[in-house]
């Protein structure tokens, strides 16, 4: 097997669209390893939590093999995200992953990352967070993260996950972007599922991160952290500090908007449609998309035509695309793996006449969503809006 030094450095475009691929029968966690192997990561920091543990364990293996320059286990998730921030402030390309309670424990860091313009790529493997405890899949933490300023991609399967991870580095490292991105995959349903994935051959790696393109100064011993680099507005309570803080937040939002063209370059459309002219549309993200695909096959056998809108980009939310996709739809079904229905809320605040929405079905607490349930809601669900 080739070692790190044998790998040819290539552009993200080459990696995603031109490099030779081979089919492997691997789990989602192994797909993370294969993406990181080729991503030229300098600092990876881990902390175990099911169902994420395997992924960062495998990244540890890559460190042992020389594909990752620095790797260690943090004290807890809060520490990991803080340490990742430190590494990114110092100009390193970083990677980490967590899920569920780990995400919540680390939460303070995510808006800090965005505000500090850190180009961090991270994987989230959502699982239940509420009591009574569950380790099973549940996407509720995505709802919590919507307004932290980080960008969010939701992968349907291990193939999406692999490709989205590899494309993310170039997106966030653009000078005009330089804010974090999370690639989300449903815990267990993707992390622990073995499936066919097309993986780039082992002879290439992404070009390294160039920190001199950062829009904020990189931290080093001559540019000490706080006084010079991020002048703490909060210390000076006057109108200038308020104005600076407000405009800075707007700048983070603008960064996400500017990221769109870079995301489009690699991801293609932010949404994917099947049977777009059908009067009934199922709108979903993540594993709920796969379950919807099965439901659409079953509905077809019953003579019912339903379409699918797969939402790949969650932040920045593709409002224009979704509005267009649903402009003529009579009934909108939104299956979700969480209790609160954050995707339904997003759609409802995006489209006109949102009483066309059937808000569900929703499955939470770790069960799968049988396609039969989606079929039932398509047939008998009443649009009531949110």
């Amino acid at each position: 097997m080739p070692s790190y030094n044998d790998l040819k450095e290539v552009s993200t475009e080459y990696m995603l669209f031109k490099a030779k691929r081979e089919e492997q029968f691997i789990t989602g966690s192994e797909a993370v390893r294969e993406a990181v192997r080729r991503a030229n990561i300098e600092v990876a920091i881990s902390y175990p939590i099911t169902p994420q543990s395997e992924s960062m364990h495998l990244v540890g293996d890559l460190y042992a093999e020389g594909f990752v320059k620095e790797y260690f286990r943090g004290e807890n998730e809060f520490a990991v995200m803080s340490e990742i921030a430190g590494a990114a402030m110092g100009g390193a390309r970083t990677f980490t992953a967590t899920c569920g309670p780990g995400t919540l424990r680390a939460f303070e860091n995510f808006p800090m990352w965005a505000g500090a313009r850190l180009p961090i790529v991270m994987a989230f493997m959502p699982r239940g967070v509420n009591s009574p405890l569950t380790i099973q899949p549940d996407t509720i933490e995505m709802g919590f993260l919507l307004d932290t300023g980080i960008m969010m991609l939701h992968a349907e399967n291990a193939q999406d996950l692999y490709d989205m991870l590899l494309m993310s580095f170039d997106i966030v490292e653009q000078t005009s972007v330089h804010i974090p991105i999370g690639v989300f995959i449903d815990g267990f349903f993707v992390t622990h599922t073995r499936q066919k994935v097309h993986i780039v051959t082992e002879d290439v790696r992404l070009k390294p991160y160039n920190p001199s393109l950062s829009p904020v100064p990189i931290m080093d011993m001559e540019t000490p952290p706080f006084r010079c680099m991020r002048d703490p507005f909060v210390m000076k309570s006057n109108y200038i500090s308020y104005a600076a803080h407000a405009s800075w937040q707007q700048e983070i939002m603008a960064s996400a908007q500017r990221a769109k063209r870079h995301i489009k370059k690699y991801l293609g459309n932010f949404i994917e449609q099947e049977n777009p002219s059908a009067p009934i549309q199922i709108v979903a993200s993540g594993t709920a998309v796969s379950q919807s695909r099965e439901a659409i096959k079953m509905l077809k056998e019953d003579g019912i035509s339903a379409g699918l809108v797969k939402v790949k980009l969650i932040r920045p939310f593709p409002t224009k695309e979704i509005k267009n996709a649903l402009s003529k739809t009579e009934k909108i079904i939104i299956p979700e793996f969480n209790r609160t229905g954050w995707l339904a809320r997003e759609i409802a605040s995006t489209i006109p006449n949102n009483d066309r929405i059937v808000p569900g079905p929703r499955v939470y607490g770790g069960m799968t969503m049988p396609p039969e349930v989606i079929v039932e809601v398509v047939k008998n669900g009443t649009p009531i809006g949110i």
Partner: protein
Amino acid sequence: MQSIRMSGLGGQGVVTAAHILGGAAVKDGKNATVNPFFGAEKRLAPAESYVRISNDDIYDTGEILYPNIIMIYHPDVILMGKSYTMPFFAGIKKNGVIIVNSDRKIDFDKDDVEKLDALNVKVYFISATEIAREVGGTDLSTNIAMLGSLLGITDIVSIQSMQKSLEERFGGKSKFIASGTTAALDDAVKKQYDKIEKLISANTSILNESFNRAKSLLK
């Protein structure tokens, strides 16, 4: 699509067996997905795994609620309800197959028998643990005996592909053991044999022996 639900106890290799079966299906040129379902990892806690095999694309993921084939790795799954699915055959499709690892026939409730008969489900009892012990000298290979039995009763994958998939799992260069517990069990299995080849050859013998014994049940 063929869908297989495997229910057993933590440590019996329910998850490993599913990965080997899925790998064999892919070697046969089919599509397959494999995923497990378990709580906090501990020995003897309920563990389930699911294998979907099809010539078409497979999208459905998570637990298999409506399986064609159910494999029960331990009588406690049935007798003590150590299962995520109650009763153990919930959701089985018409003309389904159930393979139970037990050294004796388990008498089901009258209601259950009626339900199974109405669906024309066939139930086979195989003493997989006994085969693993007799042939391989360890009950840790129960899962391999279950896979051999599956092949004896159905032709879901070829025995050649199963053999290759098994070799890859135990001898492959890129094998990855998900958990510390599984790694420890792997070590325990390996300690039985001084060389990995011996482990593979013992497992192959178990595969063949259970295949033949299951075949004889069909006569």
